[in-house]
């Protein structure tokens, strides 16, 4: 057995123990389990959010995307920055509503803001689909990382099962507290590893960043900026916009805000968080280095570029450290995703529709029982294969941004959107998004008089506009009239 496997294995055990110990001294009520009893200060909220934002995606997906698409990968830095600017304004309102109503999940927020359990079920359903994409992405990443870092000794199917079992165990016991404590180690480790790789590899192979980019431009002219078509300027702008305004609509990020003990924590984090996303710059450097040093990867395999390059460059013990960091970047988001998904299934689907009279304690037990179930579905899809990591992520973002109009309007003093409007908007947005994704249709196909440049508009944005139109029209029609207000159910 190589030293790399030993390091990865010890890290996995360490994460499991830390995750299990995280519940110590806490009475694990539903509120404690799913949103940490709303008691986290600035640092813990930062770690939790950083743990969720910077995932296997930051590690493998961003370098793979750079390897495969070049300059288009800069979209990641741009949206992570703008996402925080948007978060500054939207998060405090969400936090206040959550505290007032003692909310435990995103779907719960919609139930209370619109006084509609039906809307909660719709949000939970769409949210669960998007979370599944994200979860599968983490598990796939986990399989790749451990597979390569163990020099092929551990096949993806084994590491996916073992990783999934670890997450399931500590999430069932400690919920969001387990996630945040594992995130502490994860953040330190990944930051160190990524910054080191991003500085060392370009220097080692090219002598500097200038030489690296000159070499890339020489091999593939125009590759370090946006191409005229496809992943070009319009694609960049619309994708950054959708991801930026929609980023916090991920059910697990939405719920992560509930853990803060006051609203200013959310604002403070929004100010400093972009500095942390500079880490992705180093990943982009690695992606370009890999392009020239380990050429020939295509399709799904671009996600392997960072690891292939590191295996070629470093000793086994360091590969083990990288593998361990990669493992943790899958475990942390995986665990908050599981917590959010299980909470929504128990609190908003089961209690919302089937058993209204369920007590808090029963919901709590049920939520924990749901955890292995969600894990199994994730493992199933992760082992089935398909699309690249970024492909999965972009798809998930396009779904969850459909929650934005109903969520944002509900924070206004007088909400112009009715519950029917909110329902129709989210439904129209997600249905049209599914249709657009399956058929590959663009706005130009639907409305031929539009300029051809709009060919590359992000499908999520098109669906968002349809969503807004549906929200507006249905809200107008169903606007409660004062006289009839009493008879409204």
């Amino acid at each position, binding site marked *: 057995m190589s030293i790399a496997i030993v390091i990865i294995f010890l890290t996995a055990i360490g994460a499991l123990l830390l995750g299990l110990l995280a519940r110590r001294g806490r009475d694990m009520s539903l509120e404690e389990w799913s949103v940490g009893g709303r008691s986290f200060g600035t640092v813990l909220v930062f770690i939790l959010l950083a743990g969720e934002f910077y995932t296997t995606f930051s590690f493998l997906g961003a370098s793979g995307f750079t390897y495969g698409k070049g300059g288009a990968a800069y979209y990641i830095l741009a949206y992570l920055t*703008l996402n925080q600017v948007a978060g500054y304004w939207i998060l405090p309102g969400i936090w206040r509503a959550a505290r007032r109503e003692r909310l435990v999940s995103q779907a719960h927020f919609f139930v209370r803001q619109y006084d509609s359990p039906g809307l909660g079920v719709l949000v939970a359903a769409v949210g669960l689909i998007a979370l599944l994409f994200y979860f599968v992405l983490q598990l796939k990443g986990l399989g790749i990382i451990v597979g390569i870092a163990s020099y092929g000794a551990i096949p993806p199917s084994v590491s996916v099962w073992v990783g999934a079992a670890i997450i399931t165990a500590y999430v069932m016991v400690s919920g969001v507290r387990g996630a945040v404590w594992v995130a502490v180690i994860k953040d330190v480790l990944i930051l160190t590893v990524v910054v080191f790789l991003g500085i060392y590899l370009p220097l080692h192979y090219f002598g500097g960043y200038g030489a690296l980019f000159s070499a890339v431009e020489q091999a593939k002219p125009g590759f370090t900026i946006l191409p005229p078509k496809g992943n070009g300027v319009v694609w960049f702008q619309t994708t950054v916009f959708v991801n930026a305004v929609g980023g916090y609509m991920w059910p697990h990020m939405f719920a992560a805000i509930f853990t803060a003990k006051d609203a200013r924590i959310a*604002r403070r984090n929004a100010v400093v968080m972009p500095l942390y996303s500079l880490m992705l710059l180093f990943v982009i450097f690695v992606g370009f280095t890999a392009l020239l040093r380990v050429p020939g990867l295509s399709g799904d395999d671009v996600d392997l570029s960072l690891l292939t390059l590191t295996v070629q460059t470093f000793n086994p013990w360091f590969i083990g450290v990288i593998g361990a960091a990669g493992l943790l970047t899958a475990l942390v988001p995986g665990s908050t995703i599981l917590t959010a998904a299980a909470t929504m299934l128990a609190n908003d689907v089961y209690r919302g529709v089937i058993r209204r009279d369920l007590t808090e304690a029963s919901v709590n037990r049920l939520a924990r029982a749901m955890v292995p179930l969600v894990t199994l579905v994730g493992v199933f899809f992760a082992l089935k294969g398909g699309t690249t990591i970024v492909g999965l992520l972009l798809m998930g973002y396009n779904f969850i941004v459909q929650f934005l109009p109903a969520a944002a309007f509900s924070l206004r003093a007088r909400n112009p959107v009715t519950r029917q409007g909110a329902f129709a908007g989210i439904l129209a947005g997600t249905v049209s998004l599914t249709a657009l994704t399956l058929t590959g249709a663009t706005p130009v196909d639907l409305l031929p008089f539009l300029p051809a440049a709009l060919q590359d508009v992000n499908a999520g944005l098109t669906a968002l506009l349809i969503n807004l139109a549906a929200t507006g029209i249905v809200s107008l029609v169903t606007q409660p009239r004062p006289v009839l207000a009493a008879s409204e159910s």
Partner: protein
Amino acid sequence: MLPRLLSLVPFIGLLAGIGFANRVEPRILGMPFLLAWVVGWLFISVGVMAIVYRLDPTNRANDDEAGG
């Protein structure tokens, strides 16, 4: 009102500015101009949002949202 307007500035740089910035030369610190532009705006955004945080009156008031 001013803080809200200020926070639109990063959107201008990172969305509207991209068409203008999509070029390799001039290089900055070895990076293609587009990448340097995005990184530069990341720093500008943090600066702008730090100012927004200080100007925003809700961050001074203690009462309405302090937790316990």
